[in-house]
């Protein structure tokens, strides 16, 4: 016996599913529904009969009618989902900041491939290096692998297109810069690919007269280096350095990206030898051959050191005393020096957000090697433990349990990732930034996080504006409709004044003028809510007035008057509930309207100021063919969220209006 027949046959036995189905139906339909057979398979005849038989309260009738409109229910569900998404979502983003920018993560397409080391490389790692969003790995067989977000902005260059000659060569060293990769083959030949227009690699025909380019020395380009004696190859933002065993340093690249490079080159050409060097985002730092001091060519640059990422700073000379600096690694804006007594010290700035300190080590344990990413350090101790510290904004320091990488003999860090490698050259653990669900914007901020937080702002502004406008509209409409006469005249003239104000221009002017006054950003946001609210109540006031005019002629109002109920009480307690349906509909539609206006204002730059995200101002860069052609993710996702939300709210409002309007039932 099918379930359908089962439920119809009320005298027959009910199985448990029907009973439970009935309970669920009651949650939505109410108990009175059970007087009618289960609604799923009703015939028209039965519906008609049921309509006659049962008596439903207006509210329940409204809910039931609404429930019949499947698209409206779906829309309502989506609106709720969106609400939860934007108001609960931020709780899961502890590191999110409105003003966050990251120059190394600009315009990255949606990807989760930043930790996806190619299979061939996983158990044969010779080195891994990274500077921004892609990583370059080198296997012991001399093969180069590139993974991550490899497309370079709008240039159309893909660093994953490894040149043929590099694929055929046996590569010994490989390093990644912001937009170029440099590799040295076993014959000493230096290869470079990626962007070349700013002096990263190649001759003048690549730079086309770019003046700040310091080209790779012709000798290196033609004859290569003595690969057996290369001590270190490192790439900076758009520059490269090769340090030889004898302390000779070769440097080239974009001088604008590495401000003191020319001075270091002059110094090196004068015969100076170096023990180590490293690039921060904007500078190069070298260590003198005897390890007693650093040389940057700029007075006092990176000259204050501290023993941990926070704490008091000392002059470098005084701090190290007779100790020597062995090596140095640098993140974007700070440097870690390793001293010959196996201690570390740091110089430079540390962003105060999400900062993780150097872990305390057990006695007898010390760091044997340190690597630096864009904002974090990874250290390997003599007992095979790997630690990460520094900036944890993008989860760089969320290392897995030590047991997973207890036998690490090598650690590689770069960009925002860290890889622990064991004695057999296998990657045992990798952690850090995997990528971005919706990509990043032109400031390097995660678009997904900004959509969530921007949605919160957009909805908050819309909701508060609509609450303000509703309150004003109800008060004015009720008073005007109920009292009539002079009150009505005055209030309606005021309404007319406000209605005559052209909305968008006026809001823009007010916002622009507020912008010139000394208000904080939060105050400006509040002011925008008020502007929107105060400018959009007129429609509701007129509607309420009209409804009240009708309602006050009813008998029960006369009765209330006869009983001596106070006039204001009649207006708000006896008449207002009768116009509540109009108010709810207008509220819903106005909510979408206010959200639209806010987005429009913010899009034009007169709404919520940057860097506070809203869906409107997140789209303001999108009207640009470069963005449209190359960075589609920067507007598509935001646009979809905004569109879905406003469309769904409008559908819900529309359905509500149809449902609450008693006339529409006759038409149906």
């Amino acid at each position, binding site marked *: 016996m099918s379930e359908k027949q089962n439920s119809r046959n009320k005298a027959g036995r009910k199985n448990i599913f029907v009973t439970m189905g009935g309970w669920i139906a009651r949650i939505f339909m109410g108990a009175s529904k059970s007087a009618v057979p289960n609604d799923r398979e009703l015939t028209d005849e039965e519906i008609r009969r049921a309509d006659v038989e049962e008596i439903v309260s207006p509210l329940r009738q409204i809910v039931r009618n609404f429930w019949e409109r499947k698209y409206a229910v779906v829309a309502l569900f989506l609106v709720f989902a969106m609400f939860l998404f934007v108001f609960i979502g931020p709780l899961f983003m502890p590191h999110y900041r409105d003003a966050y920018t990251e120059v190394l993560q600009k315009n990255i397409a949606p990807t989760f491939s930043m930790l996806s080391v190619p299979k061939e490389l996983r158990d044969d790692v010779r080195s891994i290096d990274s500077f921004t969003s892609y990583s370059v790995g080198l296997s012991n067989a001399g093969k180069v692998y590139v993974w991550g977000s490899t497309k370079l902005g709008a240039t159309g260059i893909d660093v994953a297109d490894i040149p043929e000659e590099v694929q055929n060569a046996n590569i010994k060293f490989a390093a990644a810069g912001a937009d170029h990769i440099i590799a040295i083959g076993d014959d000493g030949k230096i290869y470079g690919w990626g962007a070349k227009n700013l002096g990263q690699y190649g001759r003048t025909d690549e730079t086309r007269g770019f003046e700040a380019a310091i080209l790779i020395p012709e000798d290196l380009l033609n004859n290569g280096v003595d690969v057996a004696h290369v001590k270190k190859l490192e790439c900076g933002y758009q520059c490269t350095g090769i340090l030889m065993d004898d302390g000779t340093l070769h440097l080239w690249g974009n001088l604008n990206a590495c401000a003191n490079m020319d001075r270091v080159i002059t110094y090196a050409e004068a015969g100076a030898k170096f023990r180590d060097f490293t690039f921060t985002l904007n500078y190069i730092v070298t260590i003198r051959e005897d390890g007693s001091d650093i040389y940057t060519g700029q007075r006092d640059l990176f000259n204050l050191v501290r023993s941990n990422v926070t704490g008091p700073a000392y002059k470098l000379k005084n701090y190290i005393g007779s100790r020597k600096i062995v090596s140095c690694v640098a993140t974007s804006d700070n440097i870690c020096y390793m001293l010959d007594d196996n201690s570390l010290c740091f110089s430079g700035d540390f962003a105060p957000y999400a900062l993780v300190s150097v872990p305390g080590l057990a006695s007898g344990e010390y760091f044997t090697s340190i690597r630096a990413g864009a904002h974090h350090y990874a250290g390997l101790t003599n007992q095979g433990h790997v630690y990460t510290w520094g900036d944890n904004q993008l989860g760089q320091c969320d290392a897995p349990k030590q047991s997973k990488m207890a036998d690490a003999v090598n650690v590689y860090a770069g960009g925002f990732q860290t890889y622990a490698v064991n004695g057999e050259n296998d990657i045992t653990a990798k952690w850090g930034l995997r990528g971005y669900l919706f990509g990043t914007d032109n400031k390097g901020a995660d678009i997904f996080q900004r959509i969530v937080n921007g949605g919160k702002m957009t909805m908050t502004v819309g909701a508060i504006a609509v609450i303000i406008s509703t309150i004003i509209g109800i008060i004015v409409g009720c008073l005007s409709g109920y009292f009539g006469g002079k009150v009505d005249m005055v209030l309606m003239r005021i309404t007319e004044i406000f209605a*005559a104000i052209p909305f968008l221009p006026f809001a823009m002017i007010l916002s622009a003028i507020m912008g*010139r006054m000394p208000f904080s950003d939060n105050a400006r946001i509040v002011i925008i809510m008020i502007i929107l609210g105060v400018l959009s109540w007129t429609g509701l006031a007129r509607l309420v007035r009209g409804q009240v005019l009708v309602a006050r002629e009813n008998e029960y109002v006369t009765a209330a008057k006869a009983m001596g109920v106070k006039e204001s009480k009649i207006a708000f307690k006896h008449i207002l509930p009768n116009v509540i349906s109009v108010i709810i509909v207008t509220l819903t539609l106005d909510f979408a309207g206010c959200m*639209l206006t806010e*987005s429009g204002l913010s*899009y*034009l730059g007169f709404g919520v100021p940057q860097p506070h995200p809203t869906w409107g101002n997140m789209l303001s860069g999108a*009207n640009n*063919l470069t963005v449209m052609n190359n960075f589609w993710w920067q507007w598509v996702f935001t646009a979809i969220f*905004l*569109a879905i939300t406003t469309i769904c709210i409008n559908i819900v409002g529309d359905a509500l209006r149809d449902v609450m309007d008693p006339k529409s039932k006759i038409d149906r």
Partner: protein
Amino acid sequence: MLKYILKRIGYMLAVLLILSIIMFVIYNLVPSDRAYTDAKAEIIRYKNLPQEERDNKFEELYHEYQVLYGTDVDNKIVRYLRWVGLAPYSNGKLNGLLQGNFGYSYQYNKDVVDIIKDPMRNTMFINVFATLLALGITIPLGISCAVKRGKFGDKTMQVVTIIGYSLPTFLIAIVFIWFFCSLFKILPPSGMTTPGRPYADNYWRDLLDRMYYLILPLIVMTFCSLGGMTRYVRASMIEALSMDCIKTARAKGLREKVVVYSHAWRNALIPVVTLVVGWFLGIFSGSIVIEQMFAINGMGNLLYTSLRTQDYDVVMLMQMFYVLMSLLGNLIIDIIYGLVDPRVRVNK
């Protein structure tokens, strides 16, 4: 009827007066002093003078400019009256809005009136097309939706129009630009003519060029207004179709076309006409977002750039213009309502 119209005009003037006061107050909230800025700019010419003399000279210049701009009195009411042109300046002359002094643009170094001419022409040029196009599409569409109510086509249009009016203008514009300029590359993304106006000497070729650049803004404008207007026409048409006279007409055996277009549409026209009138006044004001996005030198874009460059005299005049337009619109709508629906007149 005349009494009714006079009454409406009276209301309109009162509202205009109050709004101008509001505007003046807001305008005066901006912390800027034109006389001071001008005096500062002029005093540079006297930099050879000794300090004391220079200070005196500055005071003198400052006062001169204050007199010129009518800001030499602190009384805000007097200043307002001077701005409107009802109170004389210190030199005894009236020089306000009523006398045709609409202010001076610092950005362009011209009188505001001269600045507004070109944008106004452009805006009107575009909006006439946009409005005609939109009306030409929405009215038949709305009618056919109402007639075929509940059918598949109507339901589809309901979804399309709800999308149309739920999306912000700029989003629609972005999507269209992407579609036509990025995906298919058949239309220019912004601007009004080919850069440099190479066809300026050939009128028809030039017009063709301008039209080519106008296609995309026109499409966007039409699409944006499609949603609201179609729904409005549909709603009033449905209302009209449910009237008793329609039943009678059908019962008489009139052809369906005659019933719809002659009987129902006439009745549906009353609310539609008012909306259309409001629209035609929009021809002068232009769409801020669309003009800004497509770099059309129109009224909306002028307001946008003036706000950006803090050229407040222009903003002020634009604002008064917008207010006047919207008040005129209300007035005309009221009058038309009164003409077509005598109950309104009686009621007031």
